[in-house]
C-alpha cells in the first residue's frame, strides 16, 4: 500500500488539452472515486496513473517515487477494465495467474496465489472455466481477482460496473467496498455514476472539462457543494435551481422567477439586488402555510418516497416527500425550502455564495 500524489498534471492529445492541471492527493489506503460526465478526463487521468498514457506535464508519484517515466509493470499497480479485458483463451486460473507467470514465479507460488485470491472472491469453483462460460458478474470478479493476485500498491478501477445490469451493479458495489475494507489497498475508482461515487468513496473528486471542480467526502460534497456544477451533479433527483435576485430588505430573502419569494437564512455581504441562483434539494422542501404557491404537474410514488414535479413561479421543480400526502395533478400546494439548507450560487461564475 502507498499514497499517490497527482501534482498539476496536464495532458494534451496533439494541440488539444484534455486535462488542465489536476492535483489530487490520495492517502495510503484511501478509496478515491473520480466522477464526472463523459469526456471530463477522468479515464485519461486513470490511464496516466496506470502508465498507459504519457504525462504531458506535472508529476504523478506512487509512494515516494515519481513514476512519470516508470514502465507500467514496474509501477506496482493493478487495473480492472471496463470490459474486464479477460484473456478469452485462458481459464480463470490462468487469467489470474498470468502476471505471476510472467514474473517468473514457480508453479506452486502461482497456484497458491490464485487460490488465495479465488477464496477471497468465492471463485474457487470456477477456476477451470473460460471467460465465455461466465456470467457478467463472475467475469467482473475474475477481473478483480486478477488484480488481487498481484498484491499491488494501488488498485485502479475504470468504470468496472457499467456493463452490469442494475441489480448486479448494486451487489458488486457493496462487494468492492467490502473488499477494500478487508484489503485496505489504496484504490482509485473512475465512474460517471454519482451514486456509485457517493456510496463507495472515502473521497470523491468531481471532474468536469479537464479540471477538478471539488474534492471531499461524499457528505461534504452533498451538503456544501462549492459550485453549481457539483451541486447539480451530486444527488438524485438533482438539485433544483431557480434564477433570481438576492434581496436584503430588513430580513434577507430571495426573489425567484415571477417574483416568487423564497426564504434565506442570511444574505452574503453587499448582495442586495445581486442576481444569483437559488439551489434547493428536492428533499429540503416542506409543505407549509408560509411557503410559495406551486401547482403540481406530476406525482411519482416509489413506495418509500414520493417525487412531486411542480411549477413554482413558472419553473419546474422536484420535491421529494417521505410522508404520504394526497396529491393530485393540478393541486395547489405551498412549498417551503428549509432556509438552513438552501444553496446560493453566483449567477455568472456558478461559485457558492453562502457559507
Amino acid at each position, binding site marked *: 500500500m502507498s499514497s499517490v500524489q497527482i501534482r498539476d498534471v496536464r495532458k494534451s492529445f496533439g494541440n488539444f488539452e484534455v486535462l488542465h492541471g489536476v492535483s489530487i492527493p490520495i492517502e495510503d489506503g484511501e478509496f478515491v472515486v473520480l466522477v464526472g460526465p463523459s469526456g471530463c478526463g477522468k479515464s485519461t487521468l486513470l490511464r496516466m496513473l*496506470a*502508465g*498507459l498514457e504519457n504525462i504531458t506535464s506535472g508529476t504523478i508519484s506512487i509512494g515516494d517515487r515519481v513514476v512519470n517515466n516508470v514502465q*507500467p*509493470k514496474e509501477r506496482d*499497480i*493493478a*487495473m480492472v*477494465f*471496463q*470490459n474486464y*479485458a479477460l*484473456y*478469452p*483463451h*485462458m481459464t480463470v486460473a490462468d487469467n489470474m495467474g*498470468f*502476471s505471476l507467470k*510472467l*514474473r517468473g514465479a514457480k508453479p506452486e507460488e502461482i497456484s497458491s496465489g490464485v487460490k488465495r485470491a479465488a477464496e477471497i472472491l468465492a471463485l474457487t469453483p470456477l477456476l477451470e472455466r*473460460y*471467460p*465465455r*462460460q461466465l456470467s*457478467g458478474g463472475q467475469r467482473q470478479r475474475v477481473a478483480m481477482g*486478477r488484480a488481487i493476485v*498481484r498484491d499491488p500498491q494501488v488498485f485502479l478501477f475504470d468504470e468496472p460496473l457499467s456493463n452490469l445490469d442494475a441489480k448486479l451493479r448494486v451487489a458488486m458495489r457493496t462487494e468492492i467496498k467490502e473488499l477494500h475494507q478487508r484489503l485496505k489497498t489504496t484504490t482509485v475508482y473512475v465512474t460517471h455514476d454519482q451514486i456509485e461515487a457517493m456510496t463507495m468513496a472515502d473521497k470523491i473528486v468531481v471532474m468536469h472539462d479537464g479540471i477538478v471542480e471539488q474534492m471531499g467526502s461524499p457528505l461534504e460534497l452533498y451538503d456544501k457543494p462549492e459550485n453549481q456544477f457539483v451541486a447539480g451533479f451530486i444527488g438524485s433527483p438533482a438539485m433544483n435551481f431557480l434564477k433570481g435576485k438576492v434581496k436584503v430588505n430588513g430580513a434577507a430573502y430571495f426573489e425567484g422567477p415571477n417574483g416568487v419569494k423564497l426564504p434565506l437564512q442570511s444574505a452574503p455581504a453587499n448582495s442586495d439586488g445581486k442576481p444569483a441562483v437559488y439551489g434547493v434539494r428536492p428533499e429540503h422542501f416542506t409543505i407549509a402555510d408560509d411557503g410559495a404557491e406551486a401547482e403540481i404537474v406530476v406525482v411519482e410514488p416509489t413506495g418509500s418516497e414520493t417525487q412531486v414535479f411542480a411549477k413554482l413561479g413558472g419553473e419546474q421543480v422536484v420535491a421529494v416527500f417521505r410522508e404520504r400526502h394526497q396529491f393530485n395533478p393540478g393541486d395547489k400546494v405551498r412549498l417551503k425550502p428549509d432556509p438552513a439548507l438552501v444553496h446560493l450560487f453566483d449567477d455568472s461564475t456558478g461559485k457558492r455564495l453562502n457559507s
Partner: protein
Amino acid sequence: MADIALAPRRAKTEIREATAWDQLRHNKNWLGFWFMVPAMAFLMFFLAYPLGLGIWLSFTDTRIGRVGHFIGTENYEWLWDDSIFWLSVFNTLLYTSVASAVKFAVGLYLALLLNERMPFKALLRAAVLIPFIVPTVLSALAFWWIFDSQFSIISWSLKHLGLITQNINFLGDTTWARICVIFANIWRGVPFVAITLLAGLQTVQPSLYEAATLDGASRWQMFRFITYPLLTPIIAVVMTFSVLFTFTDFQLIWAMTRGGPVNATHLMATLSYQRAIIAGQLGEGAAISSAMIPFLLAAIMVSWFGLQRRKWQQGESND
C-alpha cells in the same frame, strides 16, 4: 353463454382441399427447397459435374476427338511406373510446403507490421494488396523477364556490382528454376495471408494488450501468449486456402517455365494439362488430376481438425 351454445350451428363454408401444387407453393420446407434450387443447380453444373466427369475420364482411354472406353485402373498403373509423374508429385509437395511456410511467415510479419500505428497506414495496406490484384499471367511474364537468362535485371545488377561475372541461368538451371517459381508464388500469395491475418489481428481487443502491459508482458510475450493463440482459428483457415491454392497452381508455372527445365518445375496440374490437352491423352491427364484429390483431402482434414472450436470458444457469448 348458454344460448349461444344452444343456438344451431351454422354450416362452415366449405374448405377446398389443398392440392399438391398448393403445398409446393406454400409449404415452408418446399419453399426452402425452391430457394436452394438455383444455388444447387450452379454447384451441380459447375463443380460436381466436372469433378465427376474428371474422375470418370481417369478410368477411360479417352483421347481428344475419340470416345473412350472404360479401362479400369490402367491409367493409374501407368502412372505408378512413370518417373515423371512421381517427379511432379515431389515438385508439387516441395513447391507447396516451401511456398506455404514462407508465405505464412512473411504474411504474419507483414500483418503485425501493418497493425502498428504508422504514417500512411491506409496507403501501405492498399499497396500490400498489389501483387494479389495484378493478373497472374501478367506478373508471371514480369518474373519471366526478371529471371531471363540474358536480360535479367538481377544478373545485370549483380554484374555491375562486380559480384558475378556471368549471367545466372535462372530458369535454365533446375535448382534456380525451382527457387524462382517458388519465389514468384510467394510474391503473389503473401498479400492474401497478410491481409487476412491483419483482419484477424484487428479483432483482438486493444484492452487485452493494455491488461498484458500492466501484467508485465514484453512485446514477445504479448505475441506468444495473446496474439498467437487468439489468431489460431484464422491462421487455420488462411493456411488451408493457401495450401489448396498453391497445390493446384497452374498459371504461374505455365507462364514462366512450362514445367521445364527437364521437368524440374512440373507440378501435377501442369503435367496433367500437358498430357491431357497438349498430348491429347485426356484419360491419363484426368488420372493425374484425380491423383491430387487424396492430397487435397488430407490438407482439408488437417484444417478441419485445426478448425474445431477450441474449448475457450465454447459457451455463451453475451459479451
